[in-house]
């Protein structure tokens, strides 16, 4: 039997005006187990707290009930008070007789009666309370950033800046991501490379940052503070430590007909390549799908010309194991494939391009050296039609239901740049809605219309017919109530963006949740936007949802701040109110595991002593207290009642029910 002290607070007149506090403390004194009951003007005051502490000593209290304001207000305060007096904080229960009693009732008798019931419920619960100690788990002071685009780079730089080691895993041979392919950035029109490449160099030169390029995350084990990650470095057949990036091999390689992925296949590169001049690390990579030496053993030109002796045809994939305290996902996005949208004739004419391809066609380092030329015949286009929302806002199974967010702005940018560089071009933009929330964004769009004379047409393109060297565009102009027929030279499609295809398998490895569109879900959509619900996993950039560069960078730094906050700690205090299975009752059925949003539950085979000295192997649920957040979903999913929640156990809640209903 517990020895319980009851402390009824007046809260000045806040409680005392509608609740007879004296009576409440008297009635509750009669409850079984209550050895002391009193009331006081302000329990949360210094004097009130001292009174509680003295009583704990004097009456040898094993449990404390405080009838006062909401636990959301002072539960933490009173727990600390009791802990200082040597009583476990979880032996304190609060009866909320202010917000949920005195403030909502006018009749003093009614208020008093209810306060007594609430007090009884708290007493009934304390009887079943047990001291809880939060576990501690150490924190490995190293972070992993998955994805080396602008999001990953920014996060890594910020974490490194705070003095922590951080590794970037990038699947491409170079970091930089999508931003390296972009020409200019809205709304300032500064060049993407000019602002990105210094950051790439910073990352490469930072002692705290290690870049695993051409690498992937193979497996992830562990939990917040203690992740154990296996990274697969794919064979690039070039020794990174020896290659100087001189590029001689990429000039001499006889295999010239490899579609250049960096330029989205708009031109060709060699089988050994450095994606672009500012690549980091600036190391050559052999494309095994095209290298004659790797395929047939005949060639070896690159090896012969390499003075550094860096070529290694026998290189194998390499597995690296590393421990991390935190993981940041920055896997980014891709434009969707357009094979289901061939009314735009994307597969039928090279002059129908995606916006990202258009970036390359406008880029000074692109396949046309920055002069806008038609891919089909290299002539200068005079009429260009831009189509927005290609695959965005679709509810038809072909595309994505969401707005891709960045297309309105980059299309305005493209249209504006076309008109600026080539004033002789006619530029049409077909839109459903122009969405430009953002600093200086709408002004930017208006400039495209007003100063640059871009024809914005409210409507959609229905059909593109390549014929006689032209693209016959059939479109609607809803405001003019007419159908337009435009003979265009180029059509540019603002394709919807979707999460990178590596995101889904990665989410599985991380037990991080995703929405139906494969974007990572955040722990709370408003209040915890850069954290995954899985503790220790953070989100940076477009992997969480479509984002432009400023938003991506902001989120990247926010994720970094969260990581730094985690890595600063030597150990993590776990939530003490965690789920705990009773091994004797667990069926091992996995029901609980399926509803756990945190992946805190795992299964292991355990030996049990059976009858007649036999041993039984049984499959048992195990909760990782460092990961469990104590929601209790598992406790109800469990058919045998083996799973219970500390601090809110079945018996405790039922005791409250009984106390209220009796």
């Amino acid at each position, binding site marked *: 039997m517990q020895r319980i002290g009851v402390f009824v607070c007046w809260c000045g007149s806040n409680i005392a005006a509608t609740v007879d506090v004296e009576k409440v403390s008297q009635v509750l004194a009669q409850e079984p187990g209550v050895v002391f009951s009193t009331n006081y003007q302000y329990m949360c005051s210094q004097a009130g707290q001292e009174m509680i502490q003295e009583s704990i000593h004097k009456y040898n209290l094993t449990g404390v009930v405080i009838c006062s304001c*909401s*636990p*959301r207000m002072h539960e933490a305060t009173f727990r600390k008070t009791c802990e200082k007096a040597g009583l476990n904080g979880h032996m304190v229960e609060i009866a*909320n007789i*202010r*917000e*949920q*009693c005195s*403030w*909502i*009732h*006018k009749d003093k008798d*009614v*208020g008093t*009666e*209810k306060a007594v*019931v*609430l007090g009884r*419920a708290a007493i009934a619960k304390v009887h079943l309370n047990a001291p809880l100690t939060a576990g501690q788990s150490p924190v490995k002071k190293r972070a992993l950033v998955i994805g080396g685009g602008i999001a990953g780079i920014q996060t890594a730089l910020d974490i490194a800046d705070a003095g922590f080691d951080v590794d970037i895993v990038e699947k491409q041979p170079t970091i930089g991501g999508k931003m390296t392919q972009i020409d200019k950035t809205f709304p300032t029109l500064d060049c993407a490379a000019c602002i990105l490449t210094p950051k790439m160099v910073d990352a490469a030169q930072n002692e705290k940052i290690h870049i695993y390029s051409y690498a992937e995350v193979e497996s992830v084990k562990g939990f917040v503070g203690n992740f154990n990650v296996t990274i697969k470095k794919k064979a690039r057949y070039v020794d990174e430590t020896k290659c100087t990036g001189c590029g001689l091999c990429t000039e001499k390689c006889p295999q010239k007909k490899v579609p250049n992925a960096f330029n989205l296949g708009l031109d060709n590169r060699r089988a050994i390549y450095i994606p672009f001049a500012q690549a980091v690390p600036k190391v050559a990579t052999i494309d095994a799908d095209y290298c004659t030496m790797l395929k047939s053993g005949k060639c070896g030109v690159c090896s012969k010309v390499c003075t550094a002796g860096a070529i290694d045809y026998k290189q194998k994939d390499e597995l690296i194991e590393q421990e991390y305290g935190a993981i940041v996902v920055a896997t980014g996005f891709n434009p969707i494939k357009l094979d289901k949208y061939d009314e735009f004739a994307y597969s039928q004419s090279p002059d129908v391009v995606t916006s990202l391809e258009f970036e390359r066609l406008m880029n000074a380092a692109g396949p046309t050296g920055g002069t806008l030329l038609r891919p089909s015949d290299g002539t200068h286009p005079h009429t260009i039609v831009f189509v927005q929302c290609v695959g965005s806002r679709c509810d038809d199974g072909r595309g994505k239901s969401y707005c891709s967010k960045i297309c309105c702005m980059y299309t305005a940018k493209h249209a504006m740049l076309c008109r600026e560089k080539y004033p002789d071009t006619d530029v049409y933009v077909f839109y459903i809605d122009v969405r430009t929330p953002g600093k200086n964004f709408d002004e930017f769009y208006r400039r495209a219309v007003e100063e640059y004379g871009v024809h914005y047409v409210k409507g959609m393109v229905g059909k593109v017919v390549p014929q006689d060297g032209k693209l016959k565009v059939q479109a609607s102009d809803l405001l003019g109530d007419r159908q337009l027929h435009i003979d265009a030279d180029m059509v540019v499609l603002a394709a919807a963006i979707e999460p990178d295809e590596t995101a889904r398998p990665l989410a599985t490895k991380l037990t991080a*949740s995703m929405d139906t569109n494969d974007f990572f*879900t955040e*722990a*709370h*959509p408003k209040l915890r936007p850069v954290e995954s*619900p899985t503790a220790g996993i953070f989100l940076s950039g477009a992997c969480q949802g479509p984002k432009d560069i400023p938003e991506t960078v902001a989120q990247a730094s926010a994720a970094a701040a969260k990581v730094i906050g985690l890595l600063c700690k030597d150990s993590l205090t776990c939530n003490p*109110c965690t789920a705990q299975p009773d091994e004797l009752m667990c069926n091992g059925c996995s029901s609980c595991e399926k*509803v756990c*949003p945190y992946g805190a539950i795992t299964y292991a085979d355990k030996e049990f002593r059976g009858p007649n000295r036999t041993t039984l192997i049984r499959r048992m649920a195990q909760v990782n207290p460092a990961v469990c*957040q*104590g*929601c*209790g*979903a598992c*406790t*109800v*999913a469990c058919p045998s009642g083996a799973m219970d*929640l500390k601090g*809110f156990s*079945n018996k405790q*809640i*039922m005791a*409250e*029910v*009984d106390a*209220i*209903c*009796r």
Partner: protein
Amino acid sequence: MSVNEQFQPTIVAFCCNWCSYAGADLSGTNRLQYPANVKIIRIPCSCRLNPMFILRAFQRGADGVILCGCHPGDCHYTTGNYYARRRMTLLFSMLDFMGIERGRTRVEWVSAAEGAKFAATMNEFVETITKLGPNRRLEDLRCSKE
């Protein structure tokens, strides 16, 4: 027993810690009145509510039980209320199937900002239950009439 003026129902409200309990606090802070018949039990999340607790409340004399949680999509634990929603739907349907008055059980999503909604919901619920009268059926289900 017929419904009379004196009948004071016992009502148990399970509130999730993050939204609805805070919403209940807010209705207190704003001094929005609702009957004292409602007694709140704090649980971490609506998904912590075991059907057993509801039946236990009825067994011990409760006349109505209501569960309040975060709005779907706003769960502090991301998905808890989605599970709760299914569980309660099925449980309530079963109670209805056994002839228990539908009005005795209810789920309402109340955010931390919806103090007014909390008070209004409770006023409404108490009224419903008062009209239904004391809960006899669940207690009496087994005892056949003479």
